[in-house]
């Protein structure tokens, strides 16, 4: 169908629940013909809408390459993506859900590090003494690099992490981490604490629209509807 509007919704987790709730509140009933595991869906009574359930990171990439028109994902993931991707996406609405912060965390025992300025100093000493750089494990290499540099921390290297980032200082793969947290309890449970001024980005659930789809009148209507009740 020519005017089909394709919408990406996170396939798992908190974000998925929050998005489904937003649809419900605006009286849009989502249907999955083959049950909960079906990765395609539709909206009752709206033949021109197709729902696709995807990983939250992929939703952003698919918006940029135009295979989705609208998508729901975290602001953190958008800001982490490459500049060419960000250029093609507009944040249409921020929701008060999925609130979380990307932070810099160090082992509790690093009592000599209080601020990013301390970290800057330790990073230089570390390089001088051990002839290698302090390693930061993260799922967010771009945001981390940018933030560290803005705080004067230049002597570090990035270790890309896929998950369970919290344990990497204790498994020998890094000295510190940056990670997304909402309450800080996972960090605390893993013997980590947040550096005093180590707050990189506040994130929340967003409705994003591919810039080339912005002109579509039907999509505009839908986007406005989904921005009213949440």
């Amino acid at each position, binding site marked *: 169908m020519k005017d089909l509007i394709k919408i990406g919704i996170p396939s798992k987790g908190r974000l998925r629940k929050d998005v489904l709730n937003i649809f419900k509140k605006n009286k849009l009933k989502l249907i999955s013909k083959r049950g909960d595991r079906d990765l395609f869906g539709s909206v009752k009574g709206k033949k021109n809408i197709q729902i696709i359930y995807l990983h939250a990171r992929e939703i952003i990439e698919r918006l940029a390459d135009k295979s989705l028109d609208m998508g729901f994902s975290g602001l953190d993931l958008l800001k982490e993506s490459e500049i060419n991707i960000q250029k093609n996406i507009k944040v249409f609405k921020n929701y008060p859900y999925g609130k979380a912060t990307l932070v810099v965390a160090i082992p509790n025992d690093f*009592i000599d590090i209080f601020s990013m300025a301390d970290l800057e100093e330790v990073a230089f000493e570390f390089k001088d003494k051990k002839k290698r750089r302090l390693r930061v494990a993260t799922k967010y290499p771009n945001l981390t690099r940018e933030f560290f540099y803005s705080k004067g921390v230049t*002597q570090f*290297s990035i270790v890309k992490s896929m998950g369970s980032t919290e344990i990497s200082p204790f498994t020998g793969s890094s000295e510190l981490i940056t990670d997304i947290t909402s309450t800080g309890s996972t960090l605390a449970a893993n013997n980590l604490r947040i550096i005093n001024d180590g707050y990189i980005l506040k994130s929340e659930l967003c409705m994003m629209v591919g810039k080339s789809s912005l002109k579509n009148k039907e999509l505009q209507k839908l986007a406005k509807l989904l921005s009213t009740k949440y």
Partner: protein
Amino acid sequence: MKSKKLSEKILRSVKSKGFKYIDLPSVIEANHIVQRSGENFRKFIFSFNDQNGSELCLRPDLTIASCLRYLENNLKGKEKIFYSGQAYRKSQNKKDSIIRNQIGFEILGSKDEKNDDKEIINTSLKSLQNLKYSSGTLTIGNVEIFKLLISKLEIPARWKLRLLRHFWREDYFNDLLKRLETNADIDPTVVEVDKRIFLDLLKKDPSTVIAGRSIGEILKRFDTKMKDPRTASKGKKVSKIIRSFLKIKCPINNAAKELNKFFKKNKINLVVDQKYFPISANKVSKLNVMFSTSFGEQLEYYSGMVFKIDVKSNSKMVNCCAGGRYDGLISDLGSQKKIPAVGAAFNL
């Protein structure tokens, strides 16, 4: 065509001063650059992997390629060299070209530093004669004076190192000065919480390693920090001295006088002789010669004398030549010894 002719003329001028032409590789190992300039430099380089997994990049500037050549060929003693070609760098400013045409000349491995500084400036001035311009400025600075000043100030050693490390990053350096004026390094409420951990750590074996750092190392730094606090009032005074130092700008023949006046006023035990500067005439051909203390900021690898030449051409001021001393660069790239280096480049 016109610029090709011009670059040929400049190359001839440099050659006539006794420099030897060398060829430089277009592709170098990215590791060298990232090790020297840190992760953030990745944003500027064009890098790729070869079949063995080594990361390579297009040379982001010719100086690095030339210093690597000196290092990798195990060269010793004095070399006077020049080179020309393209350097490739991504820019955040969309209008900037990613390709820069450079002509560079350098004196490497020579201990006659003062004379070499002069020779590089003189070679730049001679090459400049090939350019058409109505007037211009030769600005001279020296990072070393800043280093000496910092060493004489009353702040914790940690802060001295910090200020030196970030002198070349203007925005962050200003942030540092602001911080020096205001808050202290230690937050008493946090220290209270950390006391418990501190007492626990004291009981443990200091050689135990936690996340890459030994307990001994952590405790030692914690201890120095506690014993070496800094009061906001002293910080304010120091910051004021640094700020007023960075405002000094005058014709070159007044440089020593102005600096000594400043040192005396602020009770800093330093004296500079006019002979310290590579030039003492205020006018060289069509150029006004100025001394500036803040010049040298934004240029990371310079360690001593720095200079730049801006000329007025078609009623616009353009920077055409810049250079200075970078004694730390070759050792940063991996040399065991410190190798003196001074050079300049024409950007066409």
